[in-house]
């Protein structure tokens, strides 16, 4: 287990560090790659609430938006460095999640109703910021131009730094996943997903552990918003985007509920294909990549409900089993 905690980040960082040279340090490609890593981070974070705890959460767009607005507005209004802003964005997202999640779990919302109310949260925040003119409104608010600055994490014309930040966040999220999966928290969440009553009877405070999962997930998604806004350069209520919620859940389900590797791997592959489709065909078929996601999702759920993760896991089992035989 400890080996996994060291090997996984090393290997994934190694792979991820090969990408910029492969892309020839092309700024545009690096921007796309950073976005893909941020979306993948969300999928990996979603695995904690959706995969481990079994709650079909569709609020990623809300927490992502909170991260964008907190980091962005603190920078715009008070010149607070994103170094702090990003962290605060995650924190506010987690606080919001707890404020909503506490009554939600207290009153036993599950399945459809949990999914719907979390999706509603995205729309509520979108409209709230639209109406709340002093912080949101309909016009973009741009981040101040400060030039190249480590303090403000501003690297005009060079997305390599953002790529590295996104890569680090993704790897950290995967490590968090591994840590959780093989700890008390992870086993408790899985037990809750599998059977809430049985979990209760084994002494698990179901509500409390669901809240823990929700907090960790929303905090990480909040962080992705903070990095995202630095690349984008402005804030706007439309960034409370329900598509982010749907995309995250789709990739999480296709990757396999509870599978640590499945989600990120499938997310990177599909998001890369999606970017290609968007660039190549986006002009005349604007939603082609979303159609692709939808079809893959439906096929996976109908014909391979375990997701890609199940297949990856059994592959992993086979490899480790063979290694075991060699040792013997």
């Amino acid at each position, binding site marked *: 287990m400890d080996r996994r905690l060291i090997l996984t980040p090393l290997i994934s960082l190694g792979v991820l560090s090969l990408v910029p040279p492969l892309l020839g340090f092309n700024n545009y490609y690096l921007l796309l790659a950073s976005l893909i890593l941020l979306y993948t981070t969300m999928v990996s974070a979603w695995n904690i609430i959706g995969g481990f705890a079994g709650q079909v959460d569709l609020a990623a767009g809300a927490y992502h938006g909170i991260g964008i607005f907190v980091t962005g507005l603190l920078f715009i209004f008070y010149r607070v460095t994103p170094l702090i802003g990003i962290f605060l964005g995650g924190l506010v997202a987690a606080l919001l999640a707890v404020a909503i999640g506490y009554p939600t779990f207290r009153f036993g919302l599950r399945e459809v109703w949990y999914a719907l109310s979390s999706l509603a949260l995205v729309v509520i925040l979108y409209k709230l910021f639209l109406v709340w003119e002093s912080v949101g409104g309909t016009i973009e608010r741009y981040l101040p131009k400060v030039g190249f600055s480590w303090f403000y994490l501003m690297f005009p014309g060079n997305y390599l730094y953002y790529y590295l930040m996104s890569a680090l966040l993704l790897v950290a999220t995967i490590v968090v996943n591994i840590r959780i999966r093989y700890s*008390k928290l992870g*086993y*408790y969440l*899985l*037990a809750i*997903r*599998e*059977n809430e*009553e*049985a*979990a*209760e*009877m*084994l*002494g*698990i*405070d*179901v509500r409390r552990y669901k809240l823990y999962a929700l907090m960790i997930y929303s905090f990480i998604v909040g962080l992705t918003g903070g990095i995202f806004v630095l690349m984008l350069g402005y804030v706007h209520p439309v960034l409370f985007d329900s598509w982010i919620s749907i995309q995250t859940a789709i990739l999480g389900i296709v990757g396999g509920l*509870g599978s640590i590797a499945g989600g990120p791997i499938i997310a990177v592959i599909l998001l890369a294909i999606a970017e290609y489709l968007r660039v190549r065909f986006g002009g005349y078929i604007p939603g082609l990549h979303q159609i692709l996601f939808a079809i893959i999702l439906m096929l996976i759920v109908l014909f391979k409900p375990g997701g890609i993760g199940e297949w990856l896991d059994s592959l992993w089992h086979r490899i480790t089993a063979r290694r075991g035989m060699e040792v013997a």
Partner: protein
Amino acid sequence: MPKPILEVRGVTKRFGGLTALNRVSFNVEEGAIIGIIGPNGAGKTTLFNVITGFLKPEEGKVIYDGHTVTGLPPHRIARMGVARTFQIVKPFPELTVEEAVRVGAYLKAEDEGEVNNIVDDVLEFVGIEHLRDRYGKELNLIQLKLTEIARALATRPRLLLVDEAVAGLTPGEIDNIIEMVHRINRERNITVCLIEHIMRFIMRVSERIIVLHHGEKIFEGKPEEAYEDEAVIKAYLGERRI
């Protein structure tokens, strides 16, 4: 005279117009194996749900180890040392047997090492070590029931409630469970409370039985005496008409 570990005092539970439990009272002494029997719909499972906090009774209270536990959530009651198995098994299909038992073991263990020890110990005690890496969805009924018992034992309970452990099992498997219950009681010093429908099973296990019928306690005493009791025979066989 050992002190009671569990006292049920005048518990009444209604569902709409139906009275599932009607002022049921009894004690369970520490270290005993007690059987609760009764025909279908007698209120047995409701009784367990009240004791473990899944249901709140309209009247009466449940006292465990000197503390009133009525109204506490199930996880708090579990933490105090009450474990249970379910009439209809509630497995963790996507977890292995070892992982399922692990979930239970975290309740009282201080660190991962202790968790591992509890898991190894319980798997061996219940005799399902060979199933360690099998997933819940791959198990048959007896294996599921044993895993559920192992899961419950891993929480290191003082009182174990077993809800219809043998329904649907073959005679050989039933013998296996009977022996297991005796061992849990003797070797682990765990008080056991069994719900059963099949009298034959309960007779071989418990020193004292309680018979429920239509939510009321109609008998309490030695199993042999139950056979002679008019009310019990009537409840089971129905009234003999002339």
